[in-house]
């Protein structure tokens, strides 16, 4: 097991504006390596914006510092699993193509070499996705696609892993497999994970810390404590609690939150 003593991601007084509106207002967040932090919050709370800001896609005020063991404040390798992808289901891109184009510079339109194909298979096997190699991405279930994307995010091994709504479009079985793999990864590799979700019931046993976000951090702490917090219950309302028990139902956030 790799040990890392001092690496962390620190977000101080982060504010992100879109026009006159502050999507994130004075957010403070600290993630240690080997720690899984869950971020929950209602629609438009700025959850996806938070991830995109960490990825360096949004202009912001405040400070984001990464400390990696050995090299101070260098930009870390970030693994990112996007929210449910929107693509043409008739897309000819195969799972091998998707993984190979992400991890290799060898131009895959000219064909994938045996070596590369073997490497892709090896990587996918670690994520219970080795059998998906020849499928087109439009033929995958939500859970299968999440695992393929996770395999890509983990290659090469990142210091920080960002997961955006892994619960959307994934059934209960697929989701618990996904969480188990993530749990395994952080134990084995000591990476920091930020997991954005509204699957409240499912994540509580996998995250070390839970953050309720609604433009700013409303509550933060042990998942069980936060979940018993009245403010949280009020913010989410009873309907979303129901949805978290039935992940196959599509919540409005799946459609709307992608742009924030």
């Amino acid at each position, binding site marked *: 097991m790799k040990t890392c003593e001092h690496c962390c991601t620190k977000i101080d007084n982060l504010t992100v504006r879109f026009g006159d509106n502050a999507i994130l207002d004075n957010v403070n967040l600290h993630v240690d390596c080997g720690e899984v932090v869950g971020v929950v919050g209602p629609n438009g709370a700025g959850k996806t914006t938070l991830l*995109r800001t960490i*990825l*360096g*896609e949004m202009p912001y005020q405040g400070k984001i510092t990464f400390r990696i063991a050995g090299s101070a404040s260098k930009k870390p390798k*970030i*693994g*990112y699993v*996007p929210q449910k*992808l929107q*693509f*043409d289901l*008739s*897309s*000819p*891109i*195969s799972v*091998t*193509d*998707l993984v*190979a*184009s*992400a991890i*290799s*510079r*060898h*131009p*895959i*339109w*000219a*064909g*994938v070499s045996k070596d590369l194909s073997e490497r892709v298979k090896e990587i996918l096997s670690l994520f219970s996705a080795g059998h998906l190699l*020849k499928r*087109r*991405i439009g033929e995958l279930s939500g859970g299968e696609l999440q695992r393929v*994307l996770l395999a*890509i*995010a983990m290659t090469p091994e990142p210091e920080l892993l*960002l997961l955006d709504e892994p619960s959307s479009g994934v059934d209960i079985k697929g989701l618990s497999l996904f969480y188990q793999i993530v749990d395994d990864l952080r134990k084995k590799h000591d990476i920091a994970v930020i997991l954005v979700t509204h699957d409240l019931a499912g994540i509580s046993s996998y995250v070390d810390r839970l953050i309720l976000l609604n433009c700013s951090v409303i509550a933060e702490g042990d998942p069980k404590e936060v979940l018993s917090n009245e403010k949280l219950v009020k913010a989410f309302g009873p309907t979303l609690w129901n949805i978290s028990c039935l992940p196959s139902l599509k919540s409005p956030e799946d459609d709307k939150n992608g742009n924030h």
Partner: protein
Amino acid sequence: MAIIEAWYRLVSIFPFSWTHYNFMNNALLAVLLVTPLFALLGTMVVSNRMVFFTDVLGHSALTGIAIGVLLGFHDPTLPMIILAVVLAVSINLLKNITKASMDTVLGVLFAFVVALGIVILSRQGGFVKYTSYLIGDILAVTPKQIGWFFLLAVVVLVYWHIAGNAMIITSINSSLARSRRVNTFLIETSFTVLLAIVVIVSIRLVGILIINSLLVLPAASSRNFARSMHSYTLGAVIISIFSGITGLIVSYYWGTASGATIVLFASGCYGIAALLGKRLIK
């Protein structure tokens, strides 16, 4: 031009009457260079839903020619290219900052570039002079132009080799691409610029009206049965070359416009592929 002479000798082996005409031999060589080029670019145009975008670029040629005429250019190719490149880059910039539907924005631009071009070119009833740009003429291609197409083909191949994977990952999800250190803006911009140049330079061959079909049809056909990027690309290239050669030769016997005949064969390929591939309808 020793290469062209060698090509003429090579083609004359075939026992067809059209091989006696150098304009047919030139056209055949141009088709062999341009069709795979269009197929390659088309795979990404279709994957990235840029079909309407490239149609706007093609039609911007009308305004490009008009600007060339106003500025007194003998050959308006340069102003056509500059306008199309400026348009491509601006649309790409706009796409990243606007909240408006790109479909509508492109529709407005399409109307504008066509109208402005026609207004300028039709002064004193002079538009008839420019109708050759609308349907194109492959048979008028010169060895010098063929040399340009060869150069373009090399540039596109090198670009595809370097940027191919980045384009694929960007087309799937731009945030995912950026998390893998892909400069998505550079990729999108360079691709649109390349597209603008190739489309404009080829307009003399197939014409403004149907140039987009040549870009879209081979990739769209291949998409009906392809199961990987490799088979998608290969399928598009084969269909494109096949339609190009068949269309050109058939147009000789039918006495029809070559560009349109080629597109007609490409449409036929799409129809067959859609029926056999069963992916058009769920």
